[in-house]
């Protein structure tokens, strides 16, 4: 075992229980190597000194100043969260969108059923069938983009803000 490994093992011994063979190797090496024994003594003394003596004291003025600053930061954080939750519009879909969707669905069905029936019987695309398909497409687009439009309006500021 090299001295370097022994020294590292001694440092590790402060953190974990050494295995039996590690301990034996260490003891045998230390009995014959004065340099490593000296390192071990130094390490012990250093650890004791570091743990024994208190470090720099936290000035009470700084402690109070930082505590106050943190309380202020905390307060503004909580207020900001409250403000956001107050100003946020209701999560539900506005009635205007529901009405538009219902109207479009009724129109689609009333055009779609005769159009599809005609297409099935005559095997050709009629004007009604085309209109029905267009309405279906429009409905799908509306359903797809409604949440995006709502979100954009929600975050566009207080003046252009709310659906209600």
């Amino acid at each position, binding site marked *: 075992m090299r001295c370097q490994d022994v020294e590292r093992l001694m440092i590790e011994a402060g953190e974990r229980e050494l295995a039996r063979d590690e301990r034996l190797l260490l003891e045998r090496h230390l009995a014959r190597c004065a*340099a490593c024994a000296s390192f071990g003594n130094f390490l012990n003394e250093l650890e004791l000194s570091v743990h024994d003596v208190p470090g720099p004291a936290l000035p009470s003025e700084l402690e109070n100043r930082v505590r106050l600053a943190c309380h202020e930061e905390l307060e503004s954080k909580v207020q900001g969260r409250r403000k956001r939750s107050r100003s946020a519009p209701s999560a539900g879909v506005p009635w205007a969108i529901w009405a538009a969707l219902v109207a479009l669905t009724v129109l689609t069905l009333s055009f779609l059923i005769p159009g599809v029936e005609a297409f099935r019987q005559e095997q050709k695309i009629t004007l009604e069938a085309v209109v029905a398909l267009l309405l279906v497409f429009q409905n799908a687009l509306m359903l797809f983009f409604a949440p995006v439009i709502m979100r954009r309006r929600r975050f566009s500021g207080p003046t252009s803000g709310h659906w209600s």
Partner: protein
Amino acid sequence: VDSSAEFDEIYDRYKSDIFRFACHLTRNRVEAEDMFQETWLRVIRHLPEKEDRENLKPWIFMIALNLHRDLLRKKRIRRLFLLSRGGREADRISLATGPAVAGSDPALTAERASTWRNISRAVSGLPEKQRRVFVLKEVEGFQQAEIAQMLGIPVGTVKSLLHRAVKRLQRELTPFNPGGRKVKCDAKMLSV
């Protein structure tokens, strides 16, 4: 943090550790105080939810470490543009300013203060990376694996840095240690 009481509990538990760590890292009172304040403000801003607060101490120390890295980067840039004239001597911190242990013998206290002064001077002289690892391990009591995680380096590197730090401290501190003597390693003895 949702309430001041909750914050106060965390603050009271770790404030001294963080200040001591800031002092060791910066070696400058003004910088240590700034770093201490900024660390706690960041804690307020980014503190995880209650259920994710198992490793709070390493997390707070990591914030301090990141702040110190930023500080060093800024210093390097300032030095690059020759704007820095070096810190004022008055701001240099003496790490041996800890209060005397209540009820202890004055002679013992003085001896401890002197020992600590020597150690802190030697620790201050360590290279940046070695100092970080040494302080985290020996002063703050973190495990080597925790330090590796905090610094984002392999455990082997932590071991190596720590070993080099202790060796260097031994070289520096031997003159202050009356019982200590320099012993040269005999290569012939290494066969064991």
